[in-house]
């Protein structure tokens, strides 16, 4: 999976598509398997990136990779009270409005109002937070200021960031990363979580889940949620019923900015442990190393021996994700220092870096070929913390390449830039003309088929495909049709 942040317009269409299909049931109202955050911002649940608070993910202790707070001993010891599990207030209390009051209110001097009522208790509540309460930097002194990633910045940089004329933000859509080294799977006491061998989707077996909530605490991205009504945990399923029928997941399909790409990546599962244990600044490269070349005959042979279908291998060869991540190296994993090896990669946004307004004129900050990314409005340290585990050079590389491609395309289409200059920039940015064209095409002119390369699932005879999913909407969902009833 790749999300191209430069193209995200923050419209939340993905979130709504997901919500309407999967989390419109009782107990899931507060869940947003897909959510869009404004960065800088605290996100959902509040400050999820702060692992001092939530203690999620993996860490290296005495040279060994272990779960930060959800190792076996501690899970058993804390079985009766999970100390790092976020509560409802860390997300928000879901609400609706009492619309009938608009019609039933007795005649009076004032307009009737529809008061908010909690979807948990059914009582009136004063709304205090929502899943995107800090959207577009709203209330940033309260929210954006508390962004854990800002710890990478100096006080001056922080002050600059909130100066009104320098304000800068971007959107950060998030779904489950379907990690290679998922902390949720490793922490589950019931063994209910698993990764599907065929497509790598991480799922929770609802029949085996006993509601111990370890996955909720273990996932550093807080993408596993507890359904308070059924007493089971739930998470993004990457719309597997859609994937199995060759369709893109709902959030990918509905994306207005066309920022999302889906394709197969082949990787060497035997090396996961070793790679996840590398030092922070090597993690991005190590993660790339793990992903193998689907055109390499040796890899094809090994994949076949491991029971990978030919059409899956073919699909991997056409994967747009492979190009972004491995060939072009412009997609980076989010917070790889959590060491779960996420399989969702982001192309960092080209924030306005070229110029600044000094009160009278717009000043061009470019010296030499490239603008000074370190003097950018959004400090490179911020992006480096988010996408490079503190290794800013990884982000700088991506921004440079994107910048060079923009200049190159400007030379091609507008012509006010010397082609020689543009090609010089490309060389500096470790990019060829052919690559620049390819990146440009897949970024700007991509069709549905370019963005989503989904192999056949070979589950043609699966039972689910003969059932009508909408028949059970808002009740039991998809799959096994057991009455969703709390166990008394």
């Amino acid at each position: 999976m790749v999300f191209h942040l430069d193209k995200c317009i923050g419209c939340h269409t993905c979130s709504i598509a997901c919500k309407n299909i999967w989390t419109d049931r009782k107990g899931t109202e507060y869940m947003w398997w897909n959510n869009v955050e404004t960065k800088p911002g605290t996100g959902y649940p509040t400050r999820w990136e702060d692992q001092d608070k939530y203690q999620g993910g993996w860490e290296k202790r005495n040279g060994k990779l272990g779960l930060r707070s959800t190792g076996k001993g501690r899970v058993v010891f804390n079985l009766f009270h999970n100390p790092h599990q976020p509560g409802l207030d860390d997300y928000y209390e879901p609400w609706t409005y009492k619309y009938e009051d608009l019609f039933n209110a007795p005649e009076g001097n004032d307009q009737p109002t529809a008061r908010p009522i909690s979807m948990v208790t059914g009582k009136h509540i004063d709304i205090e937070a929502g899943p995107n309460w800090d959207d577009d930097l709203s209330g940033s002194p309260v929210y954006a200021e508390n962004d854990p990633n800002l710890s990478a910045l100096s006080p001056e940089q922080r002050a600059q960031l909130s100066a009104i004329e320098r304000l800068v933000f971007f959107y950060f859509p998030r779904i489950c990363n379907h990690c290679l080294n998922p902390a949720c799977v490793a922490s589950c006491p019931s063994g209910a979580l698993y990764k599907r061998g065929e497509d790598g989707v991480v799922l929770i077996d609802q029949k085996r889940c006993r509601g111990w909530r370890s996955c909720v605490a273990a996932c550093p991205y807080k993408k596993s949620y507890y359904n308070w009504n059924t007493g089971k945990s739930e998470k993004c399923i990457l719309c597997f019923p859609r994937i199995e029928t060759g369709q893109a997941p709902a959030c990918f399909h509905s994306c207005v900015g066309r920022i999302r790409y889906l394709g197969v990546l082949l990787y060497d599962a035997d090396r996961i442990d070793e790679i996840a244990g590398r030092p922070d600044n090597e993690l991005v490269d190590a993660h790339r190393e793990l992903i193998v070349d689907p055109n390499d005959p040796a890899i094809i042979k090994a994949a076949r021996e491991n029971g990978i279908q030919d059409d899956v291998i073919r699909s991997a060869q056409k994967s747009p994700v492979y190009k972004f991540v491995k060939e072009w190296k412009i997609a980076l994993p989010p917070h790889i220092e959590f060491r779960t090896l996420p399989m969702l990669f982001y192309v960092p946004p080209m924030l306005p870096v070229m110029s600044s307004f000094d009160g009278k004129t717009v000043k061009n900050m470019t010296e030499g070929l490239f603008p000074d990314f370190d003097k950018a409005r959004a400090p490179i340290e911020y992006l480096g913390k988010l996408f490079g585990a503190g290794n800013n050079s990884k982000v700088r590389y991506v921004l440079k390449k994107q910048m060079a491609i923009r200049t190159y395309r400007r030379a091609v289409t507008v012509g006010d830039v010397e082609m020689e200059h543009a090609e010089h920039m490309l060389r500096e940015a470790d990019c060829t003309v052919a690559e620049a064209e390819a990146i440009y095409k897949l970024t700007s002119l991509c069709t549905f088929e370019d963005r989503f390369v989904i192999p056949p699932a070979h589950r043609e005879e699966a039972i689910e495909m003969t059932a009508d999913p909408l028949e059970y909407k808002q009740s039991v969902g998809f799959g096994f049709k057991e009455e969703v009833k709390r166990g008394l």
Partner: protein
Amino acid sequence: MAQNTNILDYFNLFWFAVLPYVALFTFLLVTIQRYTRRGFTYSSLSSQFLENKIHFWGLVPFHYGILTILFGHLLGFLIPRQVLLWNSDPLRLHILEVTAFIGGIFTLVGLVNIVIRRLVDPRAKVVTSTADWVVLSILLFQIGTGLFVAIFNSWGSSWFAASITPYFWSLLAFSPDIAFVTPMPMLVKLHIISAYFLILLFPFTRLVHVLVIPNPYLWRKPQLVRWYWDRKKIRTPGFKAKRK
């Protein structure tokens, strides 16, 4: 007078020779039926997500307390001789009794907090069913009588091993000998009867979560992968996926 004794006999027979079997068989049959047919309903049904503060002060002392207590009862049931031998030294007897009593206090404090939590917090109330209240009431009664027995009929670890254990074994041998329990004080009788009710209601309530303690967890590898393809067969020509 004679008639009165008779009625009392029938009472004893019902409570201590009939009820235990009803409870035990209901427990076994319904638990298995529920696990196989309605496995989805097996869950801890945690409400920590909705109320995260009193939760700690209720759930932690309660569970660690009751685990200690249950383990003690189990010891008295399984190895009564060794328990009696241990108790032959007054100091050791005191250690055992005090430990058990502290466990009981923990359980009670935890349970009271649990009840308060479910009464006070509006969110926790939403997920509290009638069955939960029944279970909580019986548990409260059970722990209350247990603690009173510990206070008023002390050295329970010894007399339990000496008189109650043989009664339980006689039940399991299908020749209930209620002569062991009939002379017991009322408190002890109530404690036993309410335990039978707990076992009886066990499969119908959230208590089933006791049975799904994480078992293979401690021994398994951290990562789990499931394949729907048969990875060996899928490469052979002419292979068709098996119908599920």
